[in-house]
């Protein structure tokens, strides 16, 4: 270990083929935008050298101003892996520092920095042996739906048939992200890649929706009748801390042991320098 300095240059080339996850910043260029709700949009970024990621992982995004001031936030990867490409779906926090820029101002050709992929725990890869034949329950609050939709997309891409249900809690119809895609995915439950989707409106219910407005209840997370098992083999919960704690409480009430539940809390991740 005495002459590590001298050999530092070679240390890299002898390292494992996978570089340490998520520890260096890469340039990313905005190449596409897709609106997802009244106040959210997907940003598609060209990231040369991006090798891929697992559904559920996130990236750190860094914006740097001309004077060198920079702000950093975490965003879930919004699409299954595609070489050289990273997508994130960002919901506007009206008085936030970073999300208004990403949702309203950033233009095609603009650049930012990303690092990742980050996190190997809140992930679901189709075929995961620890999940077996499932079923899998996905519970989303607000923009917490982003990594869960990425899981659904990856499952569809892999033509994986693990029974899956998404329970998505949101305030009202204007907050619905991925609306058309979720509708299509749940329209014909015998189609490959389809999934049961339950929308849980907490404030304002659109006309024709059967469930009255209320917070997520234990009824909402009851398994669909088609499931072979009463409890999911794995549950993923994503949303704000308050939402995740509430959902975890309901899951315990429904009989889920801790080791079947994986959670991820969205919230202020601000690092400003």
């Amino acid at each position, binding site marked *: 270990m005495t002459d590590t300095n001298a050999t530092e240059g070679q240390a890299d080339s002898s390292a*494992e083929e996978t570089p*340490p*996850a*998520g*520890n260096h910043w890469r340039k990313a260029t905005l190449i596409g935008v897709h609106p997802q709700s*009244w*106040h959210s949009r997907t940003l598609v970024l060209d990231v040369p050298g991006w090798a891929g990621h697992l559904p559920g992982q*996130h990236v*750190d995004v860094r914006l740097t101003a001309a004077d060198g001031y920079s702000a950093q936030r*975490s965003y879930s990867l919004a699409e299954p892996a595609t070489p050289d490409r990273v997508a994130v779906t960002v*919901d*506007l*926090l*009206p008085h936030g520092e970073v999300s208004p820029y990403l949702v309203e101002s950033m233009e095609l050709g603009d650049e930012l920095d990303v*690092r*990742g992929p*980050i*996190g*190997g*725990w*809140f992930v679901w890869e189709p075929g995961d042996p620890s999940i077996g034949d499932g079923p899998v329950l996905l519970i989303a*609050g*607000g*923009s*917490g739906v982003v990594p869960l939709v990425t899981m659904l997309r990856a499952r569809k891409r892999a033509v994986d048939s693990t029974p899956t249900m998404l329970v998505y*809690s*949101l*305030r*009202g119809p*204007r*907050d619905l992200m991925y609306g058309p895609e979720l509708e299509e995915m749940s329209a014909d439950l015998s189609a490959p890649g389809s999934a049961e989707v339950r929308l849980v409106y*907490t*404030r304002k219910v659109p006309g024709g929706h059967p469930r009255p407005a209320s*917070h*997520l209840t234990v009824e909402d997370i009851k398994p669909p009748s088609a499931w072979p098992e009463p409890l999911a083999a794995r549950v993923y919960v994503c*949303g*704000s*801390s*308050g*939402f995740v*704690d*509430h*959902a975890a409480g309901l899951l315990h009430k429904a009989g889920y042991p801790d080791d079947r539940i*994986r*959670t*991820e*809390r*969205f*919230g*202020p*991740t*601000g*690092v400003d320098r």
Partner: protein
Amino acid sequence: MTSDLSTPAAPDGGAESGAVLDGNAAAGDFAGILASDPTTVTVRCGSCGSTQAFGQLSACLGGPGTVLRCRQCEAMVARVAKTPQGTWLDLSGSSSWLFLPAPGPA
């Protein structure tokens, strides 16, 4: 004010001031130090002895450093702080870290 994140109204997705997140949110900083994904590491709390995935620890970000706490007893188990002197990693609140074997063909 349509964002699900915009009013302090848990549990429908509300903002809590100084919200406590989880280890997933702290993973970017720790990954840079550990040269491996921290979120799947099984951490044993030095105070109460319970074990939990790093990804499930509670995490406070955004202060001078990131602090991770045990979800059972709230004791501080790990802390990372960036200072002009360098990066401090304090693991004194934990008794062990179990890194899973790297995934891949056995």
